[in-house]
C-alpha cells in the first residue's frame, strides 16, 4: 500500500482528495507535520481559495521546508488546482506573490471575454505522441473537471503535459521530474481522474 502525505494547511475541504486516494488503496495521512511530509514518498498539495494566504500558510507552518526536503529525497509531488498554481514562480492574483518556484511560469487571470470562473468538464489536449507518466493510459481528448479563475502562463514547453482551451489555450497539467501538477480536479473527474491518481501512486515514472 502506498502511503501518501496529504498536506493539511487550512486551505479548503480536502476530504474529496483523501477519499479518492483511499478508494485506490492508498494509505492517506492528512498532515500538517513537516517531519511526516519530509519522510513521505508521495506528497499531495491540494488547495482551494486564494493564492497569497495559502502561500503564507505553507511557509509559516514549515510545510514548505518539509515539502522541499521530501522532493530532495526523491518523493513525487502532485499539486492540485491552487496547489498546482503554488508550484510556479509567482501569481498575479490580487498583486504579485512569489510561488514555490518548482515550475517555470506565472499564474495570471483568464483573458477578458472568457467566462470566469472556468467551471465544468473540458477537454485535455496532449501535444506530443510520447505520453508522459502523469497522463499515461488516458485517451486523447479526455474530459476532466475544472473549477478555477486563474491559470499559469509562460510555462516551459518541456514541462507541459496537457493543454486545455478556455479563452485560448492554457496549461492544464505539467510535470518536471518528480513535480507533477493538475489545474483540474482528478478527484472529481470520474474514471479519467482515477487513472491520473493511479499513475501518481504507481511505482513507474
Amino acid at each position, binding site marked *: 500500500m502506498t502511503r501518501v502525505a496529504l498536506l493539511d494547511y487550512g486551505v479548503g475541504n480536502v476530504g474529496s482528495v483523501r477519499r479518492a486516494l483511499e478508494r485506490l488503496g492508498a494509505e492517506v495521512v492528512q498532515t500538517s507535520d513537516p517531519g511526516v511530509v519530509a519522510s513521505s514518498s508521495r506528497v499531495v498539495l491540494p488547495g482551494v481559495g486564494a493564492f497569497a494566504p495559502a502561500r503564507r500558510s505553507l511557509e509559516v507552518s514549515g510545510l514548505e521546508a518539509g515539502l522541499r526536503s521530501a522532493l530532495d529525497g526523491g518523493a513525487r509531488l502532485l499539486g492540485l488546482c491552487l496547489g498546482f498554481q503554488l508550484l510556479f514562480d509567482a501569481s498575479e492574483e490580487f498583486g504579485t506573490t512569489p510561488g514555490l518556484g518548482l515550475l517555470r511560469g506565472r499564474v495570471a487571470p483568464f483573458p477578458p471575454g472568457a*467566462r470566469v470562473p472556468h467551471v*465544468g468538464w473540458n477537454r485535455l489536449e496532449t501535444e506530443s505522441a510520447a505520453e508522459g507518466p502523469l497522463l499515461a493510459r488516458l485517451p486523447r481528448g479526455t474530459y476532466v473537471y475544472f473549477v478555477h479563475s486563474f491559470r499559469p502562463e509562460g510555462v516551459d514547453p518541456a514541462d507541459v503535459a496537457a493543454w486545455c482551451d478556455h479563452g485560448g489555450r492554457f496549461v492544464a497539467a505539467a510535470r518536471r521530474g518528480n513535480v507533477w501538477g493538475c489545474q483540474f480536479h482528478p478527484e472529481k473527474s470520474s474514471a479519467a481522474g482515477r487513472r491520473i491518481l493511479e499513475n501518481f501512486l504507481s511505482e513507474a515514472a
Partner: protein
Amino acid sequence: MSLAVRVIPCLDVAGGRVVKGLKFENLRDAGDPVEAARRYEAEGADELCFLDVAASNEERGTLVGLVARVADVLSIPFTVGGGVRSVEDAGALLQAGADRVTVNTAAVADPGLVTRLAERFGSQCVVVAVDAKRLGERFVVSTHGGRRITEIELASWVAEVTTRGAGEILLTSMDADGTLAGFDLAMLKVARSATSVPIVASGGAGTLTHFAPAVLEGGADAVLAASIFHDRTFSVGQVKRALAKAGVPVRPAVPAGLERVVFDAKGLVPVVVRDERSGDVLTLAWANEEALALTVETRLSHFWSRSRRELWKKGETSGNVQRVVRVSVDCDRDAVLYDVEPAGPACHTGAATCFTPIEATPARVAAAAGTARPGPVDTLDLGPLFAVVAARKASPEPGSYTNRLLDKGIEKCAQKVGEEGVETALAAVTRDDAGLAAEIADLMYHVVVLMAARGLPAGAVAAELAARRGTRREEK
C-alpha cells in the same frame, strides 16, 4: 469555449432515501441514494443533483449524513438543495462533501442570503434554483414548489441573483415539469438574456430530441432530468449521444470498462453471442461503440448491421430479445463476448443458433472411416426453453410474447399449438430443411408455453417418454 454541456440526473430524497424508486437492473436497494449515485456516475453522468423534498429542520442531520455517504463513493461533482435557509445550513452540506448548494424559496424571501453564501463560499458553490411559471405573456417566479406565485419577473430575479453572486441558475419550468412535452424554450431564452452565469434547464424532458434545443435554442449550459432517468426510459448515455448527434459538445459517456475495447478502422468490433445456460454459441455479429454502450446500459443485446448500416436491437421486431448477463472482452481487446439469456431463437431462420454443421458430424465421420465408436448423438435439449418460459411466467416482462400468450389463457395457447402443428406438417412436404426446422421450433416453443399455461411440469412428459423406452426394451 469548449466546455461540455452537462447531463445531470436529479434525485428527490426525503429522510435520506430516494423518494421515487429507481428502475435499474439488479439494484439491491432501489431507494438507496448511494447506490443510485454510483450507477449514474458509471453511466456517464457529469454531475448529480440531490433535492431534499421534505426539507424539514428535523431532517437536516439526515441530509448531511446522506451527503457524506454520497461523497464517499462519488468522483463527480454533486449539488445538494432543499430547505437551505442559512449560511450555516449550506456550510454543513459543503463541509460534508457537497460541491454546490442550491437555494430557492429562502432566497426569494431573503435575497441577501445569496450574497452571504457567495461571500462565504465563493460563487462556484452557489446555485440559485428558480421555479418559474408562465403568467399570460410573462414569466414569474414561484416558491414553495410552485404552490405560491410571486409578482417577481423571471428576468429581473435572474439578473438580481447574478449580481448577488449566484454561480449558476437551475431553472425549472413549473408548467412543463412532469409533462414530458419538452423544455420551455421561451422561458430559457428570457433567463439566458438576463445572465451570463451557466443555466441548468429543468422540467419537461420526455424524449431524446428534447435535450438539444434547450442548449442550441434556449442557451442552457446543462440539462437536468429526473423521472426519465429513474424509470430507465433513457440512459444518460442515450441523452449524451442524442446531444452529440445534434452538434452539442458533451463528455462522451462510455460505460466503465468499455474504454478497453479496440474497434477496427470502421469503428466496429466482432461480438460472439453465447447462451449463458447451455454454453452454445448463438451468433457472430458486429457492434460499434453505441451498440456496445446500449447493450451495457440496457442489458439487452444491441448490434450494428453492416448490410443495413444501422443500429439494431436483437428481438426488436421478433420479440426474441437477449438479456445480457455479462459482457466480456478478448485478451487482445478486439473482440467482445455477450453471455445472454435468449427469449427465443437467435437466428432469423428461427433456429436456436445461427450455426449449422456444414460437414458430417463426428459420429458419421468416424463411421465412414471404419472406426465407428459411440459418438455424441445429434440431439435437442429443450431445458433452456423450459427455463426461459418458466422465468417469464414467474416474473412477466413488458413486451414479452410469452407473457402475452400466457395472459390470453390456455385456449389461446392450445389454438397456437394446433396452428403450429399444421404448419409443421405443411412445411415437411413443401419447404426446405431450414423452413421445417423453423416450424418445428415454433411448435416446440408453443408446446412448452401450453405446458406452462396448464401448469404441467416437464417431468411429467419426461416420465412418460422414459416409461415408453422401458416398454420397448422389454419387447426386445
